[in-house]
Structure formats: structure tokens, C-alpha cells
């Protein structure tokens, strides 16, 4: 069948909301885009384990320690679901990891910020997971089957993440002056980076929007960001805290919150590798991988020996 017919059939499936599956014909650009997006999403989950994992040993109570362990473990699991979905597009896990370590593949910049206090753990759960959930719910309807199904599974598990984050901050907000100050300080530091998670403004994109046409992405950056601001601006009131934006104000005419300008200079610096923790995050991942080399080799060697033994037996 000539390619333009295949493309036509492909677009028809997309338009009819029929999922594209691994063995289906797809335009090369569709394959590449999905592969890049899914693998970067996977990398984000894995790197995201580091800023939170930072506080496992110092969690202030046994209950919080268990909750944090479960949350970080969930993130590992989500990374796994996503790597698994990405591998259906023809790239191996090892290749994806090499791309991450070489700097070729990216991960969500939010994880290049440091977790300085225990309250940061609450802020991450509430703001960062909150932003992620917004995007993830949209992705459960993405056109590529394995990605959509991974997202459905992730969304089911994700709800406890945002709740535990908010609840962590709620307890602080009702605590001692030192705890209340810790809570406000964490919100001050994580708010703008959380807004940056939604990416650059829509106005900075080209007009022909294949990712929307191919239903890889179903809502624009600005749309999602606005949705997020509206939600958080209400929730922060329950904490008795402020968002660090003097321009944040309800606009009755728009039926949305107006908010201030994001520091795009900071955004691009962090993307470029100049965030507070870029180096450390990547070094930690590389170290884990390199130091695990002998383990993976040994397990593979043992499996091979066993196969031979079983054949001989």
C-alpha cells in the first residue's frame, strides 16, 4: 500500500479514537515523538526518586518514613511501566538509559531543584505531583495504546501521592511556628518551578501542531497551567499559606486566576544544565548504573550457566 494511503488510514484511526498499537503502521515522526516523550517521562520518574529519596533516612516519624518509601517505590514502578511502553516502539532500556546518562535525553527539570527541608517533601507531593497528575489524566487518552494504558495504571496509583503531600503540609501548617515557617518557605521555593513544569508558553510553538493532530497531546501547555493555578490557588487557602506571587488574583471576567510572569531565563538555564542539582542527579544515576554493572553481568552469567545445566540434565 502506498505511504499516503497508510497515512490516511492512520489519521482516520486517530480521528476515530482508535488506539495505535505497537505492530501497527505509523509515521516515523509519530514513532520518534512518542518514543522521546515516553522515555523522557520514564526518566523523570526515576530521577524524581532522588530528591524525595533524600529524606527517607530522615523522615520525622515511622509513619512518614513508610509513606515516603511507598511513594518513591511507586515512582520506580511508574518509570518501569513507561520504559516498558517505550520499548514497544523499538528502543531498548539500555539505549534509553545511555541517552539519559549522556545528556541526550531529558527529564523533567523540576527534579533539578534540591529538597532542603522536610516540608519540601510535602510541597513536592502537593505541587509537583499535582501538576503531573493534571498532565497524566490528559495522557490517559493519548493515541498510542501502550502509553495510554501505562498512564491509566499510573493515574490510579498517583492519587495518594498528591494527598499525602498536602496532608504533610497541613500538619505543618497547624504546628509550631518553626513548622509553619518551614511550610511557607517550601511553598515559596517550589511554586514557580512547579509552574515551569508545564513547559514554555503556547506562543513559542510552531503553528502546525502534529502532536495535537495525532492526539499525542490533548491540551496545550497554557491550558494545563491555568487549570493548575486555579486549583492550587484555592487549595493553598486551606493551608493558611500564601503562594509567592503578588500578581495572583481572581479575575471574574475570565473566570480564572490571573498570575504573574514566569522567569523564563531561569527555566532555560535549568534545562541547559545549570539548575542547582543537574550534575548531582545525573551523577547519582550514572554511579548507580556503573556500580551495578558487575551485578547485572553476574546475574546474566548465572542465568546462562543455568540454561546450559538444564539442557545437559
Amino acid at each position, binding site marked *: 500500500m502506498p505511504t499516503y494511503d497508510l497515512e490516511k488510514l492512520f489519521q482516520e484511526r486517530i480521528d476515530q479514537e482508535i488506539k495505535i498499537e505497537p505492530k501497527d503502521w505509523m509515521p516515523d515522526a509519530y514513532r520518534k515523538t512518542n518514543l522521546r516523550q515516553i522515555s*523522557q517521562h520514564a526518566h523523570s520518574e526515576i530521577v524524581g526518586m532522588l530528591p524525595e529519596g533524600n529524606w527517607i533516612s530522615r523522615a520525622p516519624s515511622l509513619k512518614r518514613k513508610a509513606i515516603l518509601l511507598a511513594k518513591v517505590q511507586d515512582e520506580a514502578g511508574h518509570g518501569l511501566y513507561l520504559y516498558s511502553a517505550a520499548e514497544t516502539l523499538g528502543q531498548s532500556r539500555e539505549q534509553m538509559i545511555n541517552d539519559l546518562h549522556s545528556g541526550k535525553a531529558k527529564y523533567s527539570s523540576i527534579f533539578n531543584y534540591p529538597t532542603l527541608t522536610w516540608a519540601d517533601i510535602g510541597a513536592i507531593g502537593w505541587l509537583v505531583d499535582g501538576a503531573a497528575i493534571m498532565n497524566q489524566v490528559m*495522557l490517559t487518552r493519548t493515541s498510542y495504546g501502550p502509553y495510554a494504558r501505562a498512564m491509566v495504571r499510573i493515574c490510579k496509583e498517583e492519587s495518594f501521592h498528591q494527598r499525602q503531600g498536602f496532608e504533610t503540609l497541613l500538619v505543618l501548617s497547624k504546628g509550631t511556628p518553626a513548622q509553619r515557617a518551614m511550610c511557607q518557605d517550601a511553598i515559596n521555593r517550589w511554586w514557580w518551578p512547579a509552574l515551569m513544569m508545564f513547559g514554555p508558553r503556547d506562543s513559542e510553538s510552531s503553528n502546525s501542531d502534529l502532536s495535537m493532530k495525532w492526539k499525542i497531546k490533548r491540551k496545550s501547555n497554557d491550558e494545563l497551567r491555568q487549570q493548575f493555578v486555579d486549583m492550587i490557588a484555592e487549595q493553598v487557602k486551606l493551608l493558611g499559606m500564601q503562594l509567592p506571587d503578588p500578581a495572583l488574583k481572581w479575575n471574574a471576567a475570565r473566570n480564572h486566576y490571573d498570575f504573574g510572569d514566569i522567569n523564563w531565563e531561569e527555566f532555560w538555564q535549568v*534545562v541547559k544544565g545549570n539548575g542547582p542539582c543537574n550534575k548531582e542527579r545525573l551523577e547519582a544515576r550514572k554511579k548507580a548504573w556503573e556500580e551495578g554493572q558487575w551485578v547485572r553481568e553476574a546475574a546474566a552469567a548465572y542465568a546462562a550457566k543455568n540454561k546450559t545445566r538444564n539442557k545437559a540434565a
Partner: protein
Amino acid sequence: MQLIRKFFYGDIPDGASGAEQQTSVTKKTDWPLWEVFIRSKQGLDHKHVGSLHAADAQMAIENARDVYTRRMEGVSIWVVESSQIVASNPQEAGELYEPATDKVYRHPTFYDLPDEVKHM
């Protein structure tokens, strides 16, 4: 076809950052890919839930248990090396699946039963 320039969650364009030294790849550490099928306690059949890497079958089962059954008990886990799976070709879907639509008498709704006949 225009290249996609819109940025979306988690995706940063290649040009915007510096690349570093590539870490070396070695083939002898390859752990095969396994597909995982889970049947829940109330379930009737095993459903495909995803894949994972493991060095051997034992590890694959345990990894599947750790990753896919964290929130439930009493499940049955099947793991199969991905290379062992034989799948039908979606292009052949027509000849493999279409004929059934002609045989409408296979469908229970084809039959009109009196209301008195319950549970059928």
C-alpha cells in the same frame, strides 16, 4: 510534513542542552525483556500488564510480584520472555477476524426468548 516544535510535558528539544560523554555499553549485561500477565483474585483470565527486565524466570516472577501486585493479593503471575511471544499481524486482521460478523447466530442477542426464561 513539518517537524514538531511544540514542547510538552517532560520533553525538551535536543538543541537546548549540552551532551556529555557517553557511558560504555556492554552486551554481556543484557537481561532479556519479559512480558507479564496477571490474573487478579476475582479475575477469570490473565491480562497483559506490561514488561520488565530480568536475568532469569525466577527473578522475572519476583519482579512482576514487586511491580504489578503491590496493591493486591492472591494473584496468579505468568511471565514469558518477549522473544517467545508469537503475535498475529494486524494487517491480517481482516482475514483472521472478519468472517465472524457473518455468523451472527453465534451471538446470544440473535435469539428471542420469552421473558419467563430467566438467567440465559
